[in-house]
């Protein structure tokens, strides 16, 4: 393939935006730019394919002498030129190589005057960004407008300077508003930046930001200063969404601006949208009550890939400004999630959850959902050909529970005959260890089962949903790995009870703690006095296993996902478990409420008894805040439905009635 054809293909590819671009051309140094092959530097008209028939003629619209170019990252060229195009005129700019290969350019015009439309000529500065510069040919620039069309074949070798020079000479001298505009234009280019070379691209953008941004006095944090600003931490939700925490203080005048700049020049305002809260610890630095904390979830208009050199600025009503540099971005997603949840302790009225944490966590959970896929499916033994039920067990970290369950299932002949047992490993780093163990455990216990290894950690809901997709049974049983049957036959009893009830949604058995107190006899909802949120409660939790009230089957608002039976087709129709809750909680009641909304009834079955050795898997304050978040979300999504359900006498009266019956 000739260089020319390669160039054209590259241009087309870039124009459609479908490809992340070619591999970097290692034969050329990063600072060496393409050499023009044509000596004909004169402007000549070209046919614009999208507007065939229309002829462009040299009109002098572009000031040929003003064209300056500079490389920006490995794949982009920054182009500036001056044009007398009327400010109101609609225009398009494209680059052309040969007769075809039009590449529309991103561009903006910076008008240096505040004149009216009549004032002419308009020496507007055009700033354009050209992607995927062809290596062998220098493109022509064409400006199409309703006013005129002008094509120019610049002498690229003469116009090209380094980025710093171009910024300094063409852009740095403009007033602050135009510079901000130019910066925003450049930063937006991150949206289309190819993956390869993204780092040097981002670094060049940072250079542009430093050249164009108005530097402010560094913030002061000393006693006696009236203005102060600090960014405590920035956590990445993804490349363009961030969780920002800091504080700001101004003892002189109200704040009018609080801005965050990414290293690439993205700019977000925090003043209006951030959650602000008291920081009494700042009273030692400022007058009491002046300093306040802020927490903000921000979405940048483009991507940011640099961790260092984030900057924040503050400005008050009398014009005092200062800035501070933020610590490096933390990009570990688990750390981000933990930080968001831990920050909820500053939330007094759910505003922080609603305005910041919810959109942030939702975005994170959606990302997790996107990577929910099976990497490998292992099958141990021959599973039943037409299984009555598929038992789906997500495994997370405690893979030793596999052994515990198999040791018990081994003594249950009907389980071995009827159940299609599917383990879904949600801690992928343990894949090798599990595979190593599983084959031997199958040999030892003779219970057939499958193991699905996932590509990444996806959480309780998605792990269960993946298991459900693999399932072959008419019924599904979602079973936690820390649930052990009290005695064989539990699955039979559940199947029989399930099939004997019309209009059943989900069925849940009696679950016990290791000391024979009740862990689960159905769920109901209770509005908490302090927060006003609905909370999942277990009927009779902690009472004795033989407590009479828990000894009869009955309709309940919801059942626990630790052991939940549902028809597979029904589960599929409902779309499975909702993956928006954090760390596996409330997915079960969410599902059960949707079943109630379908007009179905959820049932508790005391005849099937299993132990649920519920453990605690992460520290207490995090668990408390996670629970608060899930509670809020659950209420946010289902509060009205829950309120209606809890009006029903059979659900609210049940605990009291049962207590009487038992006495």
């Amino acid at each position, binding site marked *: 393939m000739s260089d020319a054809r390669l160039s054209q293909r590259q241009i087309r590819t870039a124009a459609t935006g479908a490809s992340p671009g070619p591999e970097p051309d290692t034969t050329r140094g990063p600072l060496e730019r393409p050499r023009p092959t044509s000596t004909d530097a004169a402007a000549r008209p070209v046919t614009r394919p999208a507007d065939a028939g229309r002829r462009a003629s040299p009109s002098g619209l572009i000031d040929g002498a003003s064209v300056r170019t500079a490389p920006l990252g490995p794949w982009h060229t920054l182009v500036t030129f001056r044009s007398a195009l009327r400010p109101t005129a609609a225009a398009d700019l494209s680059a052309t190589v040969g007769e075809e290969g039009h590449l529309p350019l991103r561009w903006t015009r910076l008008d240096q005057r505040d004149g009216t439309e009549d004032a002419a000529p308009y020496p507007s500065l055009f700033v354009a960004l050209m992607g995927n510069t062809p290596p062998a040919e220098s493109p022509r620039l064409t400006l199409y407008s309703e006013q005129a069309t002008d094509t120019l074949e610049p002498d690229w070798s003469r116009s090209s300077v380094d980025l710093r020079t171009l910024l300094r000479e063409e852009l740095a001298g403009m007033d602050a508003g135009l510079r901000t505009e130019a910066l925003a234009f450049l930063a937006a280019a991150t949206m289309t930046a190819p993956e390869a070379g993204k780092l040097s691209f981002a670094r060049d953008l940072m250079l542009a930001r430093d050249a164009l941004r108005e530097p402010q006095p560094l913030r002061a944090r000393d006693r006696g200063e009236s203005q102060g600003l600090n960014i405590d931490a920035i956590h990445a939700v993804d490349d363009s969404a961030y969780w920002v925490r800091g504080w700001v203080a101004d003892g002189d005048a109200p704040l009018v601006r609080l801005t965050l700049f990414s290293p690439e020049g993205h700019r977000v305002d925090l003043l209006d949208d951030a959650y602000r809260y008291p920081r009494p610890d700042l009273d030692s630095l400022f007058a009491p009550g002046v300093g306040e904390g802020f927490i903000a979830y921000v979405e940048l208009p483009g991507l940011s890939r640099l961790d260092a050199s984030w900057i924040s600025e503050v400005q008050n009503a009398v014009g005092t400004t200062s800035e501070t540099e933020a610590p490096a971005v933390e990009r570990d997603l688990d750390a981000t999630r933990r930080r968001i949840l831990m920050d909820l302790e500053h939330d007094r009225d759910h505003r922080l959850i609603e305005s910041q944490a919810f959109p942030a966590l939702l975005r994170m959970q959606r990302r997790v959902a996107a990577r929910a896929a099976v990497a490998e499916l292992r099958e141990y033994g021959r599973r039943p050909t037409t299984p009555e039920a598929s038992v789906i067990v997500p495994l997370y970290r405690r893979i030793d529970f596999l052994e515990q369950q198999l040791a018990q299932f081994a003594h249950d002949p009907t389980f071995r005959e009827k159940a299609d047992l599917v383990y879904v490993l949600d801690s992928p780093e343990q894949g090798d260890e599990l595979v190593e163990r599983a084959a*031997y455990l199958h*040999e030892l216990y003779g219970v057939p089962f499958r193991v699905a290894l996932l590509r990444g950690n996806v959480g309780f809901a998605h792990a269960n949903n993946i298991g459900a997709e693999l399932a072959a049974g008419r019924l599904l049983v979602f079973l936690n790995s820390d649930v052990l049957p009290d005695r064989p036959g539990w699955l039979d009893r559940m199947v029989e009870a399930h099939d004997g009830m019309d209009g059943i949604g989900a069925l849940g058995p009696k679950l016990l703690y290791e000391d024979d107190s009740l862990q689960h006899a159905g769920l109901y909802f209770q509005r908490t006095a302090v927060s006003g949120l609905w909370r999942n409660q277990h009927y009779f939790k902690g009472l004795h296993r033989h407590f009479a009230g828990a000894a009869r089957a009955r309709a309940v608002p919801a059942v626990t996902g630790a052991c939940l039976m549902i028809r597979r087709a029904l589960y599929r129709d409902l779309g499975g478990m909702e993956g928006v809750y954090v760390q596996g909680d409330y997915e079960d009641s969410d599902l059960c409420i949707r079943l109630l909304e379908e007009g179905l009834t959820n049932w508790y079955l005391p005849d099937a008894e299993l132990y649920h050795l519920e453990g605690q898997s992460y520290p207490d304050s995090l668990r408390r805040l996670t629970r608060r978040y899930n509670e809020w979300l659950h209420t946010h999504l289902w509060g009205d439905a829950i309120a209606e359900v809890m009006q029903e006498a059979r659900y609210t009266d049940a605990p009291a009635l049962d207590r009487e019956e038992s006495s």
Partner: protein
Amino acid sequence: MAKPRVLYIVHNHPELHPGGAEAYALELYRSLRDGDRFEPQLVARIGPNQARTAEPHPGTPFRAMGADPDEMLVYTATERFDFFWMTHRDKSFYTRDFDAFLRAQQPDIVHFQHTLFLGYDLVTQVRRSLPDTPILYTLHEFLPICHRNGQMVRTFNGERCMDASPRRCQECFPEIPARDFFMRRRFIQSHLEHVDLFLAPSRFLRDRYIDWGIDPARIRFEEYGRRPAQRAPAGAERERTRIGFFGQLNPFKGVTVLLEAMRLLSEDVPGAHLWLHGANLELQPPAFQERFCDLLDRVGPSATLAGSYGHEALPGLMAGIDWVVVPSVWWENSPLVIQEAFQHGRPVICSDIGGMAEKVGHEVNGLHFRAGDPRSLTETLRRAVTEPGLWDRLRAGIPDVYDMEDHVRSLGEIYDGLLNPTLRREAVS
């Protein structure tokens, strides 16, 4: 018809490291071999904590013990054994190695003696490899019930425990969640479920396992059999003031209770003397060693720390004393030292609890004292060494020790029953 093959599985070979259960298992194996009804085989576990050189052959944990083709060793790495779950972490040890062994040997009966360092999983593997082969298990201790080495003595106050539960076990081990104790029991029981018949050397032990969840129909009392020994002479007519202790010098064996009692006794019966025949003091906690030595000093000339002894020295040592004291502060199962004392015609003074109280008849062939109480022991010892005619009366009450031949005959009947499908059902129901 070929003689039925009986496979014994034990956690150690007494030649590698002395121990009561393993010595019994070896004697049982040899007695069966010397008989003509069964063809026994013994597999004893070997590992770095028991034998100086224990490197396994590449590719197999099995190796021969010596010339006898039916005495085998099986290696397990001590550090790969989980003492909480009582399981070997490398499951291929069961599913590959032991499976191949069992299929090759095709025993008609598998009789477990001890599965420490082997894991209860081995029972499940036997059932998997040999679905129709009867499985017996002789319970020598309380490891399945109590995580504290089966001592059933509480960690924080030394109180004896008869009531293992997740809650109470966690009180002894606060760092282990209660649910883990629940799972431990369920896990071990899931394996022991495959055992057709358990044998209990004491009624006390049988009751503990029934309390723990084993069906009474599946667990039968069967005392240890002993090979006959030459009874030590009674010795010349004399005052019966010589007291002997045989066993490990550890806190559970009650030696400090005994020393305290001797100190009190020596004040008014200076003629009484204690010989301590025991070992492993140096392996005990420093505080215990200190207390032991301090008490020994205070007893002064009334006690002699004689140290450890070989099995062959026992008749001589028994001849030199009149009374055997078994002052354990834990329950014990069926202490071999009681059988040994009886074999040599020595009445036994013991704690009034568990397996000791069961094996020694108070005022019949020995005396009981209140477990853990030095004053009670002092009074009992005073009576023993001073009351005329008591020693002779109690010596006359000593029963014949259960003979190994009778034991083997009894086991033979049990094996026959398990091998006959109709009898097998009856045997276990």
